[in-house]
């Protein structure tokens, strides 16, 4: 089931990449995706229920884009102005995400957002350590991060 998901994804990606939408090409993509996954089969953890995620994904993307622009501007402002407004620090952020894939996505998205950078996950995978640039209002930041995580998890679960 999971294999099939990835496989199809890869096949579609293939078609998209090659830019020629034919049955043959899809089949070829499927085959190559299959080969790619075959190499990986022992390592890929379980994934399921992907079909419901597309609308959530779109919603998430919109949210993410907004965050992205917002925080980018904030960083830009600080960089561009002579005085530092920032108040950086490393915080421990307790995670709702559980599987490897979830944690990876959460941390990646956090990293992608300017102003926050995932440094590491605790050994028990319950806490993500984040370097944040603007710790003026730490609670607000934690709330934002929690919302982000929540939206990601909704897409992934």
């Amino acid at each position, binding site marked *: 089931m999971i294999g099939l998901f990835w496989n199809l994804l890869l096949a579609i990606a293939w078609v998209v990449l090659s830019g020629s939408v034919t049955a043959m090409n899809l089949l070829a993509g499927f085959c190559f*995706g299959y080969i790619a996954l075959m190499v990986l089969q022992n390592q890929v953890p379980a994934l399921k229920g992907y079909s419901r995620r597309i609308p959530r994904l779109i919603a998430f993307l919109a949210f993410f884009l907004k965050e992205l622009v917002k925080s980018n501007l904030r960083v830009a402002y600080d960089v561009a102005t002579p005085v530092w407004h920032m108040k950086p620090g490393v915080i421990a952020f307790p995670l709702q995400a559980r599987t490897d894939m979830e944690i990876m996505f959460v941390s990646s998205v956090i990293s992608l957002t300017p102003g926050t950078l995932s440094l590491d996950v605790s050994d028990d995978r319950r806490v993500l350590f984040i370097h944040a640039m603007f710790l003026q209002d730490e609670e607000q930041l934690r709330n934002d991060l929690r919302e982000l995580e929540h939206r990601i998890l909704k897409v992934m679960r």
Partner: protein
Amino acid sequence: MKTNTLILHTAALAIMPLQLMFSVFLLLRGHDEPGGGFIGGLVAASAFVLYAFAFGAESTRKLLRVSPRDILAAGLLFGLASTIPAFWTGQAMLTALWWEVPLPGEGYLKLSTVLIFDIGVYLAVLGTLMTFVISLMESDE
């Protein structure tokens, strides 16, 4: 210091198939667009390098199943094999031969010694780079 992170591991597993797939893509369309066996092979190798950085040399060996050396040998033999059909047809070595295999539906699948050769290049590049990286990493571990 502390090594091996969950994030890198997971990301490697996610990124690697994309790289591999893209490498095959580059290989196959190299005749018409930028790409080809060499570039494809390099991208494929980067996929495995990523894996090796995340999981270590030993796991990469297991993932590859065959020794990088054998991939290399296969690549070289493919490269040489592409020269042979020309002999049968009595032409000079390395003369390209093209076969059009009709496919169900419309279109033809273009097979050629050139493709065989490009696959050889791809495998040789992959095998070579994996030999470099794995043996160097193993010597450190």
